[in-house]
């Protein structure tokens, strides 16, 4: 009997509760995490921010021939508070860069960035212009680079699918 009394210390109780919590988390976290990640993969809503001329091809990608809504990507969504994807459509000028960062900061987690077009990757054709940033790496953490000037809509769609592949390998963070 003495032994049981010795075992029932507050410290041991804490350890027991912690173990139970771990068990519960293990029971819930993995399948739920998988389900949530699956939901995130199929529901990428891009922010409506146009930075340069690639927005034409971004618009074409949502048109009837390419139709990104097949992949659950709704274009031209209203507010950035409900969006998860930011497609940087082309050149980032020095005037646009602070606004782009502001948009990124205002979006809720989790959020993903696609750099669309040569200008968004390296500055592209405007490598020697005085008002253009050489790529957006210094502004945003980029997930997927989609090269082209401008990329064809197929390329953009493949970029979105690559992002889905990447998200599949990411661990879904606990729901915030």
């Amino acid at each position: 009997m003495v032994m049981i009394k010795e075992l029932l210390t507050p410290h041991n109780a804490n350890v027991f509760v912690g173990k139970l919590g771990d068990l519960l988390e293990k029971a819930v976290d993995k399948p739920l995490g998988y389900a949530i990640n699956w939901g995130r993969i199929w529901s990428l809503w891009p922010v409506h921010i146009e930075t340069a001329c690639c927005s034409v091809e971004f618009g074409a990608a949502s048109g009837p021939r390419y139709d990104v809504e097949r992949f659950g990507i709704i274009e031209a969504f209203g507010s950035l508070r409900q969006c998860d994807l930011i497609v940087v459509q082309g050149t980032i000028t020095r005037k646009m860069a602070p606004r782009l960062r502001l948009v990124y900061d205002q979006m809720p987690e989790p959020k993903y960035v696609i750099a669309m077009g040569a200008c968004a990757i390296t500055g592209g054709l405007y490598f020697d212009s005085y008002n253009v940033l050489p790529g957006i790496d210094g502004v945003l953490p980029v997930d997927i680079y989609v090269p082209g000037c401008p990329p064809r809509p197929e390329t953009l769609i493949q970029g979105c699918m690559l992002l889905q592949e990447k998200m599949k390998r990411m661990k879904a963070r606990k729901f915030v």
Partner: protein
Amino acid sequence: MSTQLPPGLQLEKVDERIMTLNVGPQHPGSGHMRIIVQIDGDYIVACDPDPGYVHRGEEKMAEYRNYITNIPHLERPVIHDSCNILYPYVLGAEELLGIEVPERAKYVRVIAAELNRCVYTLYWLAIYGIFLGHSTMFMWPTGDRELFIDLLEKLTGARVTHAYFIPGGVRNDMPANFEDVCLRQVGYFEKRIAEYADVFYDNPILISRTADTGILSRNDAIRLGTTGSVLRASGVDYDVRKKEPYDVYDSMDFETNILKAGDAYARSKVPWLDMMESCRIIRDALSKMPKSGSVRTKLKPNPKGGDTSVYKRVESGRGALGCHIVSRKKPEPYRVKLSVGSFRNLIAMPYLLKGEKLGNMPSVYWSLNYWPVEADR
């Protein structure tokens, strides 16, 4: 203290009734620019456009490249109207370098320019539709636009950025059977464009919403120096293709569409009517063009211009597009200035939006046939 802040952000002492709205650059109804709107209730009391978010210094870059290498980046301001924005530059360079263009190349240029005008106008129309909350009108033109993109891809090899016009003609000849495919798709499009009237232009809600809003009278249109569809919707008969025909436009059979009303509805209807004329021009040019012959004059390596300046202009999808090239006996132009239709129409925006309702802002703004990237250059 307030002078240090950027325009539109000054902490002015204003009436408490007035609310300042920043429409853009992250706003579904602004595009690549910011419009600082001050509203009193539902009425706009002041509007200050703030472009420049895509200012990439094209004109400065043009001073460091020679006449040929300038071509790819000068078409970037309007990639979906790239033939037309290159047109004045190429015409000017030809005059400076003293190059003759073969007859067949002139017809190919006209066909490419008109196809590209349709591509531009359809995209513009799509955005106009979504700005008014009509999502079907976004999708239909976007889908039909692909037809013309297919044609241009067949002709030039690229989807939107063609770099097709060069000093001395065009880059390559038409592929075989282009004429048949072109006629077939244009014929389909002419049937299709009539359906737009059913779903969009004859829609009673659209008419009651855009008619009598943002009226630009004939005198004001001239005074503000607007151009293109904005000018023609106000009743001014001015089309560079008619008034100062370049290449072979003087032998083409087409009309200039003029509407008298000068409101947002008329401004939205003129480009649509222009697309029908474009189809006519394409048919006409295909029938009149020489069936064989060269399409480009070979250039000397690194050609130099004279010690002079030229100003050439064409009619693009957004209006007269001028290019002022100053040359100083060098392979590079000394100064290239693009006078673009969007930048000229921008001046009408604060004028038209003042006193309008907030709900009319998107329709009036986009009816100005404005493409922010082009205005910023």
